[in-house]
């Protein structure tokens, strides 16, 4: 499989950029002047309390919502000013893992994973092996003929990841992928996200309430040769010069960016609000 990042890096500028973005509903603004950018191959971990706007940020990045004010740019396209028809083709380059999986409950797991390929009229002979490959990636190849309702919550999230990666997207947006899962299943999900990042080099935005998910992504990586997860050596990044595939954290508070920085800055913070996430 060709690393998806190859396509992303052909675009100059960041993979995702928010410029003074506001988003509000009847009850008032949820996001208030949010500005940030995510370079290709970087993982941005969005932290915040429930209702702080993490999911909305992901939906804005996918063009599922339009900002009230400000600009959202994804892979060089001004998402905020694109028509729905133009967005449909851009979304082919974006994978979205929804909080509860959002699998189509009337389709089998295999059909769910193959959905995007069938929409793109890929030949049936090509679909089967690609579905198997994606399901093998999440270690669920034996579930292809099962319905989503027959799977556990963790398995549904893994199928959702397989569905998101089937067409090798440049960017993957994860909406609380470990919410409500037990620690072991959460670890499995994070390992998959790590593999997706390190094997295919995707850019990722991960919304979560669990700080340990972000630290796991920052401190571990998937060793392609050894084929398992290993702790990142403190010297790895400077030595390899791979600053682009770093993991950064961003914390929302009251619809604004309260903190933006690397894992070391966050872990050493003395700020009482941020310390609440570290407990």
């Amino acid at each position, binding site marked *: 499989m060709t690393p998806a990042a190859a396509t992303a890096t052909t675009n100059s500028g960041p993979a995702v950029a928010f410029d003074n973005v506001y988003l509000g509903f009847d009850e008032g603004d949820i996001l208030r002047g949010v500005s940030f950018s995510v370079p290709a191959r970087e993982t941005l971990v969005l932290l915040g309390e429930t209702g702080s706007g993490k999911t909305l940020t992901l939906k804005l990045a996918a063009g599922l919502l339009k900002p009230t004010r400000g600009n959202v740019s994804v892979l060089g396209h001004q998402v905020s000013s694109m028509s729905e028809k133009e967005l449909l083709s851009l979304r*082919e380059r974006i994978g*979205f893992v929804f909080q509860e999986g959002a699998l189509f409950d009337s389709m089998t797991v295999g059909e769910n994973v193959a959905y995007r390929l069938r*929409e793109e009229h890929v030949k049936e002979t090509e679909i089967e092996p690609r579905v198997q490959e994606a399901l093998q990636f999440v270690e669920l190849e034996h579930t292809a003929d099962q319905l989503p309702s027959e799977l556990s919550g963790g398995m549904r999230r893994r199928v959702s990841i397989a569905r998101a990666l089937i067409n090798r997207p440049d960017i993957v947006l994860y909406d609380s992928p470990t919410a409500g899962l037990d620690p072991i299943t959460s670890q499995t999900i994070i390992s998959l996200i790590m593999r997706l990042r390190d094997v295919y080099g995707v850019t990722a935005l991960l919304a979560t309430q669990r700080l340990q998910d972000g630290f796991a992504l920052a401190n571990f990586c998937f060793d392609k040769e050894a084929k398992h997860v290993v702790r990142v050596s403190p010297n790895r990044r400077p030595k390899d010069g791979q600053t682009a595939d770093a993991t950064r954290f961003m914390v929302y508070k009251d619809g604004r960016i309260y903190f933006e920085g690397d894992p070391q800055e966050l872990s050493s913070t003395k700020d009482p609000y941020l310390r609440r996430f570290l407990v």
Partner: protein
Amino acid sequence: MAARSVKNLATGPRYFQDALDQMDDIGVGSLPIVLISGFFIGAVMVLQTGSQFTRFGQAALTGDIVAIALVRELGPTLTGILVAGRCSSGIASELGSMLVTEQVDAMRAMGTDPSRKLITPRVLATVLMLPLLTALNDFVGLLGGCVASVFSLRLGAVEFWTRAIKALDFADLMQGFTKPMVYGFILATVGCYKGLNVRGGTQGVGRATTQAVVLASVLIIAADLFLTKLALYLGDKLF
């Protein structure tokens, strides 16, 4: 939404397989309730009208009146209301559930236009299936009427059918098969609209389902008045 569902037919991508699946669900799935109801409505009509005609010694006219009432009015409207009860609610609850579980967003996130994938096939299937269901309802209604007239009014089956068929002209058939197309459009678009505008989680899905059935049924009855007036006007002018 209604206009977009029609506009989508002009350009691709089109989801013919989804439309066929919906035709199976809406058409074949509604067959039992339409046939059973149709049979009993036809029979009841004969009992109600036959007793009046018998008083004037004109029991044979029962076939005429039942055929005209069924084909022009009762067949299309009752089929529309029955299918609204089954399918408007089904469409609203299915799409509403998809909305609250983010399946509609997932569809959009994967580059699919939900109006093409979810709305157009349902509208197309209902518009095409309702006239066919109405035709079967009319036939079974006349069959029920025939059985009732044979056993209750002591009329001959051949006489009943002969009078029933002779009583109908082309304008009646036009009216009888145009109405269900409009009703099909109403009940599918109402179901889709209510389903895709659900607010308030699973409770909202239940509310949308009820609203879809009530609104579709009321709109069908209201549309019937205008369609009947239009059909009678056109019938006088054209036929």
